[in-house]
């Protein structure tokens, strides 16, 4: 077993690991974006509702 072989095995696992962490981060970001846009939508709906009441 050569140095390069051990490093290559470890490298592959580490890359896969970083990819999985990126997927988690992406999921957090996407959920946050969805949540913030949902809040935004809710707010704008509320604003519209207020305006219509005023009118």
């Amino acid at each position: 077993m050569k140095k390069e072989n051990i490093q290559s095995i470890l490298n592959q696992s580490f890359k896969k690991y970083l990819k999985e962490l990126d997927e988690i981060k992406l999921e957090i970001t996407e959920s946050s974006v969805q949540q913030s846009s949902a809040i935004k939508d809710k707010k704008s709906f509320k604003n519209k509702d207020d305006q219509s009441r005023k009118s």
Partner: protein
Amino acid sequence: MTNPENLNPNIPDSGEPSYKEKHIDAKESNREPAPEREVEQVLNYIEETSNQSVEAALETAKMIKESQLSSEQKKRLTEKLKKSLRNVFRALTFSVLLTVSVIVTSPYTYTRYSVDSKINERGAIEYTHQDKETTHVINVLAGKEKFTVADRENIYLDLLAAKLDEAHSNGRYLNIEAKKLPDMSIKKKMQIAEELSSSGDLEDRESVKASMIDPSPKVFDEDLYSALWKLEQECGNPKVRFMFEGKTQRYSASFERSFYSAKSNTIFIDVGSNEETTEDFIAELSHAKQFDENPISSLLLGARDNLQVQIKASSQGLSFDEVYDQTMYDQPGTIEYQAHQEIEPELKKKFLSYAPGTAERFDKERDKFVAEYNKLFNEKITKNEERRDYFNKKRALVSNNLEYEQLLQDEDNQRDKAQKDFDKKVSELKAKYGFI
């Protein structure tokens, strides 16, 4: 293994060549060093990857914690993170294990030797091992070369080293180091031998045995020569060394019989008759074949077996060797079982096909021994008896220890007889006078 380069005997030399000078092994001195630097680089790489993995995991965990996600979502992502971290740590552990295997097996992988063959002027094949002492040892076993004065000196040194070890364990001769013996002058060695003889540490019979023993056949056995070299090559060309009474001053560990050292890929064979020594050589070749074919798994298997024996020995208050001998050779799956019950019979079959005449000669020698043994000790052993017991008994037969035990037994018998005679006389007197 003792490294002769580190020895500094500090003993005045008479100018005669030392054993080391006479037997300097060119290959040993030119051998490439173990790849410590490569191993160090891999370990650094593993450590770096490990640190990065932990940092990345902490960062992600922080992101999960600080996010606006629901507790359900956070829990699911944390589980996902844990699973990924576990996987990468598995890979890290695997890499560390592989690196450790490289560290441990590197001396073995760096002691792989070659054997050359050529046709000589008589049209016969002549073999040469890369290590010249191995060529000599195998040639001596076949009777192609003589068991020289230097060989005898070497086994005598083994005997001295063993006796020094025993004396050291009793706190005597601590100023003489056994590992320095090979580098001492002949004069100095003789002084030590005389001292050990006068103190009774070295018995005359042992010195006589060392000076009489010869592992060569009476005449050059061409079939044996060819068979031994074929088997040597089929088992990965290990180095071979003679030793005496299970001891060797050139190896730090001491065993009671022939053994194979995976670290240096060397077979140490106990010198006896041609038949005994050849039998031992073939038996230990099975370990060489084992490590040649599967060095890492054999190493791990050996480590596991040693651990098991150690645990059992500690828990039962027995010695390591005792438990090892009782359990390892007959238990399927152990390194000894694999070597001596699975590989060795195959090698013996090959030996029989390569040198049928020699095998027949050995068989007759065993028959002679068995007949002699059974007659002397009134037992019924067979020549197929387990090898270790067979040779242990055979050694015991020629040693004074058993003869001494026999004398003690005779003495006991005489004492018993005297007691019986005395009791008989007492009974007679009682019968005659009614009282004593």
